[in-house]
């Protein structure tokens, strides 16, 4: 990478993990609610 | 139009007569206001922050909580002996009912603020005399904003569980905007800035009032009719 580009890929990784975690958690919650009852 | 306002006034007058006759709610709200102002006095470090910088926030946070307390009981008294049902079978228009409740709430909150403002001046030694009129204008506009949505929500909340907790949760997001405007306007007034710097905030407050009184007026019938 050229000089001057900030090295902050850690934040990128964190965000890219958090998003699918939230989505999957919600999908699981929906699944549980619709199959219960 | 005349009948609309006439009926609204009939409802409002009845509410205010009831409020002043029982006094419990009004007195509690006034004492509550005084207490919150006292809490603010102890909840700050006077050596770190100048009172004048904190004053607008103190005033408006106090008034916001006082308005919330007042609004909680707005429809409570219509539940007694099923009076609300009586209002709904009567020829009273739903718009008049909303306007009447709005007026009564404005009266109630207005009284609380009329006591709260001098206490605020006394406790925090804020020089309001030179800007008293514009300040009252700010208070009036912001109060209409608080009460417009508040009246609508209090009509819904009385028929839910945990009504006392529900109203703040629903209402606070709607109060934050007029609160912001009022704080900004008050800060400029107290700092002795020219009125032209305040007029923008006043316009925003007025716009907020206009929008939400209209919306609440249109939506209110749906909260009481099936």
């Amino acid at each position, binding site marked *: 990478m050229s000089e001057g580009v900030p*090295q902050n890929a850690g934040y*990128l990784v964190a*965000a890219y993990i958090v998003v699918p975690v939230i989505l999957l958690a919600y*999908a699981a919650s929906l699944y549980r609610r619709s199959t219960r009852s | 139009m005349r009948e609309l306002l006439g009926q609204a006034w009939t409802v409002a007058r009845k509410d205010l007569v009831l409020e002043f006759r029982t006094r419990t709610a009004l007195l509690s709200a006034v004492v509550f206001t005084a207490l919150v102002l006292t809490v603010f006095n102890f909840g700050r470090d006077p050596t770190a922050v100048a009172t004048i910088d904190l004053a607008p926030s103190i005033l408006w946070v106090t008034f916001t909580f006082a308005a919330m307390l007042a609004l909680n009981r707005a429809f409570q008294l219509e539940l007694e002996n099923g009076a609300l049902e009586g209002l709904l079978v009567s020829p009273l228009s739903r718009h008049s009912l909303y306007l009447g409740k709005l007026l009564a709430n404005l009266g109630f909150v207005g009284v609380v603020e009329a006591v709260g403002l001098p206490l605020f001046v006394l406790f925090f030694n804020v020089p309001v005399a030179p800007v008293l009129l514009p300040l009252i204008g700010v208070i009036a506009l912001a109060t209409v904003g608080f009460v417009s949505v508040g009246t609508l929500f209090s009509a819904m909340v009385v028929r839910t569980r945990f009504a006392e907790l*529900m109203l703040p949760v629903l209402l606070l*997001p709607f109060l934050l*905007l007029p609160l912001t405007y009022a704080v900004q306007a008050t800060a400029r007034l107290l700092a002795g800035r020219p009125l032209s710097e305040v007029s923008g905030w006043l316009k925003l407050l007025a716009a907020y009032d206009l929008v939400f009184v209209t919306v609440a007026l249109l*939506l209110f019938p749906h909260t009481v009719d099936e």
Partner: protein
Amino acid sequence: MSLAQKGRRVVLAGLVLLGGVYVRALAFTPVERFQGPAQKIFYLHVPAAVTTELAVILVGLASVFFLFLKDPRLDRFAEASAEVGTVFAAIVLTTGPIWGKPIWGTWWTWDARLTSTLFLFFLLIGYHVLRGAVTDAGLRARYAAVLGICAVVLVGFIHMSVYLFPTLHPQPIVLRPAKPGVPPEMLVTLLLSFGVFLVLYVGFVMQRYAIAQQREGAASDV
């Protein structure tokens, strides 16, 4: 195939497509020179924010029509859209600070956009709390519709006041990445991601709608 099953498939497809967006965003989209890799958070953050707003606007529209038509399907849709909107708002509110820390140097600022998303989040939470506190189905639907409309008006008012009175509001000190001048590769990635979020929204709403339907059936069979 039931609505819930269809919804699950749509979500599954959405998640697979999201994987595609990851590949494109990480490997085939250039790194922004001033913000570095963290700028790529925007490919998730902005679409989630737009979808949240869309979800809330649809709640408002469904609410308006519900009050006129009294069609329970509109109420179910509003409930579903509000819940999915809450989830997307949660994504916006988590990715926002993760981006803000390296770029602004702070987790949270009261930037106009972040603040308005926080408003949305509070309003949506209030919406669910209200729904949970009313036992009568007819009353619940009407109350929710009233609150839904008020919420949309408030959000609209916030946006309007930001644009009409720009001098009064604290302007965000943000470099706005989605402004014209963005390289086309970035724009395409952003639009693709937005499409994927829409697919996810549709799939989630279908499932949530099916749950509402199921509950109503259970309630009225008693």
